[in-house]
């Protein structure tokens, strides 16, 4: 009997050890889960940061609050919902379907979960002064409710932001309802789709159907030479093969997320398509998909093809996402 009790208590100790270091949420929270839309990868929820309505709300409040910075800026200063959470002058990256990201920033400098990315935003990018939050009349109560802790640290700020960002899911474009057989694309969009999916344009090999990105990095032949301004992934890995590679952006809501490319060199989708059509630079670093024989300097699309491809890209717009009041300033 004694030894059985012993084994049991060791087992219990082991179990309770597991919880160490995790934030114990308080019971009154309303937990929610996220479901992956059709054609999307499974969602890997972060067990150490269970999603709750209260946590998401807190993240949203923080996202729109200048209290996080010492420069009078909030996240939303450079990430505007109506522009798919981008902003023109800073050429920031859009926030669509970030929950599926493994790499953050264009060179993938941050690898991991949304929580990891938010730790970077709070600590290294914003250098958030956490004492301001702790002294605020409202925030300590809200944080206590979600994370069950009296004191706010940058971890809880990052976790709350991550909860909000993980809900920014866009999966309701015209193309999605076409895939579900609910809407027809018009003939121009259909030709654009054909270019997108076949050798004619071959866009889908990097902008995979579903996320419309591939969670990977490519050199698409924007430049002939490479220096610290356009090293891209190489700046992180120092691996020669990674020169000029950037993260493939999701094309969802791309109509609203200009200017385009890592340096914002193109201001319209027409310019982007013209680049793929005739502007690709062939270097040792250019992705093989971009330099097919006969097409090594571009796709040789007709004027109508180019219009159709742009029209298809616009069929990836999701106004229910851009106008969703759950994502807007509280």
């Amino acid at each position, binding site marked *: 009997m004694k030894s059985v009790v012993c084994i049991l208590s060791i087992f219990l100790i082991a179990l309770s050890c597991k919880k160490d270091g995790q934030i114990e949420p308080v019971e009154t929270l309303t937990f929610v889960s996220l479901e992956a839309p059709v054609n999307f990868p499974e969602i890997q929820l972060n067990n150490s940061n269970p999603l709750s309505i209260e946590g998401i709300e807190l993240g949203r409040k923080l996202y729109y609050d200048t209290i996080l910075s010492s420069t009078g800026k909030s996240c939303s200063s450079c990430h505007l919902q109506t522009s798919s959470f981008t902003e023109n002058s800073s050429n920031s990256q859009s926030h669509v379907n970030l929950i599926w990201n493994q790499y953050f920033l264009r060179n993938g400098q941050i690898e991991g979960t949304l929580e990891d990315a938010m730790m970077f935003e709070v600590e290294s990018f914003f250098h958030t002064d956490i004492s301001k939050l702790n002294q605020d009349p409202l925030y300590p109560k809200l944080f206590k409710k979600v994370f069950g802790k009296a004191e706010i640290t940058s971890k809880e700020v990052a976790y709350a932001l991550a909860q909000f960002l993980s809900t920014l899911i866009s999966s309701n474009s015209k193309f999605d309802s076409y895939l579900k057989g609910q809407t027809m694309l018009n003939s121009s969009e259909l030709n654009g789709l054909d270019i997108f999916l076949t050798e004619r344009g071959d866009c889908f090999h990097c902008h995979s159907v579903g996320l419309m990105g591939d969670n990977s990095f490519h050199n698409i032949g924007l430049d002939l030479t490479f220096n610290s301004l356009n090293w891209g992934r190489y700046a992180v890995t120092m691996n020669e*093969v990674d020169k000029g590679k950037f993260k493939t952006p999701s094309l969802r809501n791309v109509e609203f997320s200009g200017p385009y490319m890592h340096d914002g060199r193109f201001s319209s989708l027409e310019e982007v398509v013209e680049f793929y059509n005739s502007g690709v630079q062939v270097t040792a670093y250019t992705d093989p998909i971009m330099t097919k024989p006969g097409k090594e300097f571009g796709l040789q699309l007709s004027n109508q093809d180019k219009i159709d491809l742009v029209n298809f890209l616009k069929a990836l717009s999701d106004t229910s996402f851009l106008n969703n009041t759950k994502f807007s300033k509280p």
Partner: protein
Amino acid sequence: MKVEKKPSLSFLNWGITAIIFFSISFSIVLSSCEKTGVMPQFSSLKISIHHVIDAEDLELFPIQYMNESGNTYSVTDLKYYVSSIKLTKQNGDIYFDQQIHYVDIKKTNSLSFVLDSIEPGKYIKIEFDLGIDSVRNQTGFLLNTVDNLNMAWPVSMEGGYHFLKFEGKYNINSVPYGFAFHLGKSKAIIHYEINLNKGLYYWNEELILKHDLNEWFKTPSNYNLEVDEPYIMNSDSLINVIRQNGFDAFSL
């Protein structure tokens, strides 16, 4: 009377404790024996794929390899599915692995996989497919992971998955062009059958499968990237040429 009974009860108590203690330590000793001496009930086999070009270990980038036609080339990406692994025992018994394994040269942990619960014995043949059989090669069949979704073959072209993505660059007069051998569509599946002479008796047995990328460029057809189409996905006949070349890409 009551007082007398107590010692015997506590004796019983200690007896149980001792039995539990001994059985636990005995089973620990037993299980540690499994790894060293005593033959276990089942064997497990770790298959590791070793990528080479002729005799050299594959290195991604720069352009440094030469194929049968004299093209100098590099490999930038290599992704494929290995499925339906079958091991045949000397007595004819067959071990079958249902799984579809995704291999990506850039992901070290995808370069080997473990087959469990193999009946111990001498095995004389290994068979497997590069690609996915027609029953399972259906869009959406595989778990929607990022990798599987990136391997999707367009629905408008029969759907299913890419069986192989072998991409790289080759030089013509020092200008680097791209090639992409993409195999897909159910009939492009490649079945391999390789003789083995391997006793599988213990846990963690190992088998190294050699994948020589230069084989995709030759036998039966010398594929010359300067002359032949380096991009094959849109042509069933080119897919078949590369497929035929691939039959000897794997060896032990």
